C-alpha cells in the first residue's frame, strides 16, 4: 500500500492519502461506541521513541495503537548523540532486539527518521512523528481529514478547497507536510508570513505566498494558524510578539473577514494572545478539539495500513476461505 514506512507527506500519492482518510473514517465509525478496542494488531509491538517532549502527540499515537490491541512501549529518549546520551543507532539496535514491529519517532534533527529507516538497523516500520523542521505527516493527514469532514462531507479529496497557512513557515514541519499533502489532494494553498519567516525558495513551492493576512482571509475555506515561538525574536526574525500579533494574529475582527462557513485550525499547542486570540480559539469555528480526536483515528489508520497486512514471507496465494 503506502510502503513499509511513513516518513513524509511528499511520498503519498492522492490515492494513498484518500485511502488513509477513508480508513480513518471507517475506524472513527467503528470506535464510536462503548467498546473502543479492535483486535486487529493484537500481538504486535509498537514503540514510541520521542527525543523531543510532546505529551499530546505521544498519547495520540499510544491511544491509536492500544485501540488496535497492539502492545505499546514508550521510550523517552532524552539524550541525542549531541548530549552524550545513547546514540540513535544504539537505541535502534536495542528496539530491534526487543522485537518492535513499528517505531514512531519524534526527533529534533531533520532526517532522523530516514536514518532509522534506511541505515539497516531495524526491520520494522518507521513512522515519522515530527523531525526537526522537516515533516510531520500524520499531522497533515489529520488536518486533511478534518478539512474533508467540514468541506467535503467526509469523502473524496480536497479538490478546489482554499486553505491558508499562517505563521512561522520557515521553522514549521507542519507547514511543509501540509503544503505537500493539501496540494496532492487538490487544494489551493496560500502561505502567509513576514518575509523573514518564509523559507528560501518558497516561490518554488506548490502554493501561493502572501505577506498580508487581511488580503488572504476573505478568500479561504479554512485557515491554519501556526504557533510562533518566542525564541525567534532572538534571531531577529521579528521585533516582538506584539508586532507579530498585530500583523499576523487571528482575532475576532480578522475572523469576521473570512467567509461564514470557513473554519480555523491549529496544530497546538496554542499561544493564546499571540497567533490566535482567546475568543477565536474558543469560538465554534475553531475545530482544534476535533483535530485532536481525528488525530487518533488517522493514526489508527496509518498503523493499520502499515502493520495490518502480512510480511512477504507469510503471505499465501489463492482466494480467501
Amino acid at each position, binding site marked *: *500500500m503506502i510502503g513499509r514506512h511513513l516518513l513524509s507527506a511528499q511520498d503519498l500519492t492522492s490515492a494513498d492519502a484518500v*485511502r488513509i482518510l*477513508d*480508513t480513518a473514517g*471507517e*475506524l472513527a*465509525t*467503528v470506535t464510536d*461506541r462503548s*467498546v473502543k*478496542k*479492535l*483486535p*486487529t494488531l493484537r500481538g504486535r509491538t509498537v514503540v514510541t521513541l520521542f527525543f523531543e517532549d510532546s505529551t499530546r502527540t505521544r498519547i495520540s499515537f499510544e491511544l491509536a495503537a492500544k485501540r488496535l490491541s497492539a502492545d505499546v512501549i514508550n521510550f523517552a529518549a532524552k539524550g541525542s548523540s549531541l548530549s552524550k546520551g545513547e546514540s540513535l543507532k544504539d537505541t535502534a539496535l536495542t528496539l530491534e532486539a526487543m522485537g518492535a514491529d513499528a517505531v514512531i519517532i519524534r526527533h529534533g534533527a531533520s532526517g532522523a527518521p530516514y536514518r532509522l529507516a534506511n541505515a539497516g538497523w531495524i526491520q520494522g516500520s518507521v513512522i515519522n512523528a515530527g523531525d526537526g523542521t522537516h515533516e510531520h505527516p500524520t499531522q497533515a493527514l489529520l488536518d486533511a481529514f478534518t478539512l474533508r469532514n467540514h468541506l467535503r462531507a467526509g469523502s473524496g479529496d480536497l479538490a478546489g478547497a482554499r486553505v491558508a497557512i499562517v505563521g512561522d513557515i520557515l521553522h514549521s514541519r507542519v507547514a511543509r507536510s501540509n503544503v505537500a499533502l493539501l496540494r496532492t489532494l487538490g487544494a489551493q494553498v496560500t502561505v502567509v508570513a513576514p518575509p523573514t519567516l518564509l523559507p528560501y525558495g518558497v516561490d518554488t513551492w506548490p502554493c501561493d505566498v502572501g505577506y498580508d493576512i487581511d488580503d488572504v482571509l476573505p478568500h479561504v475555506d479554512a485557515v491554519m494558524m501556526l504557533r510562533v515561538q518566542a525564541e525567534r525574536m532572538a534571531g531577529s526574525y521579528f521585533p516582538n510578539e506584539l508586532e507579530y500579533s498585530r500583523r499576523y494574529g487571528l482575532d475576532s475582527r480578522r475572523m469576521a473577514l473570512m467567509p461564514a462557513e470557513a473554519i480555523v485550525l491549529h496544530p497546538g499547542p496554542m499561544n493564546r494572545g499571540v497567533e490566535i486570540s482567546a475568543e477565536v480559539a474558543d469560538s465554534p469555528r475553531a475545530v482544534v478539539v476535533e483535530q485532536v480526536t481525528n488525530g487518533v483515528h488517522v493514526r489508527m489508520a496509518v498503523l*493499520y*495500513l*502499515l*502493520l*495490518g*497486512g*502480512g*510480511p512477504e514471507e*507469510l*503471505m*499465501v496465494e489463492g*482466494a*480467501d*476461505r
Partner: protein
Amino acid sequence: MPERTVLDASDVRRAVRRMSHEILESAKGVDDLVILGIPTRGVYLARRIAAAIQEIEEIDAIDGHGVPCGSLDITLYRDDLRLREVRALEPTSIPPEGIDGRVVVLVDDVLYSGRTIRAALDALADVGRPAAVRLAVLVDRGHRELPIRPDFIGKNLPTSQSETVHVHLTECDDDDSVTIAQVSQ
C-alpha cells in the same frame, strides 16, 4: 475454465423470498429484528431480505417503521490478516436502534470455512449484546473449518475445494446468478 450456472436469476429471487419468509416465521414477526449484511454482497442481500420482509408484512417503510438494516465489516476481526497484503476497510453501519436485546440476522453470500462468520460474531460482541444471532446465507458450499452452521440457506451446494463459487447480484454485477468454476491448481 468453463463456468457453469447453478442458480439463474429467478432461482436467486425465489431463494431470497423463501429465506425472508423463513426468517419472519422463526422470529414470529418483525419486532426486535435487525438484518446486518457482511460486505460486499451480503449487504445487498440483506437489503433485499429487509425489503422482502417489509413487503410480506405490508410495512410502510417510509414513516421510519422499516426493518432495521445495515452492514458489518469484519476486516478488522479476520484471523488471516497477515496472510495477505493489508486490506481496505469496508463500511460498517449499525442502525440507530442498535443490537442490544435484539435478534440479529447476519447475511452473507457464500458460507465456506466459517471464519468470516466467526469474525462477525466477534465484531458483534464489541457492538453490543444481541438476544440472539442467526445466520442467513445464499449458498452453503460446505468444507467448514469451525463449528458454525447457517439457520437460513438459499441453496446447499456441495463443492470440491478445487472449485470456486461466485455470487452475482445486479447491484454490482451483470445479473443475478450463482456460478461454479474449476480453478487449476
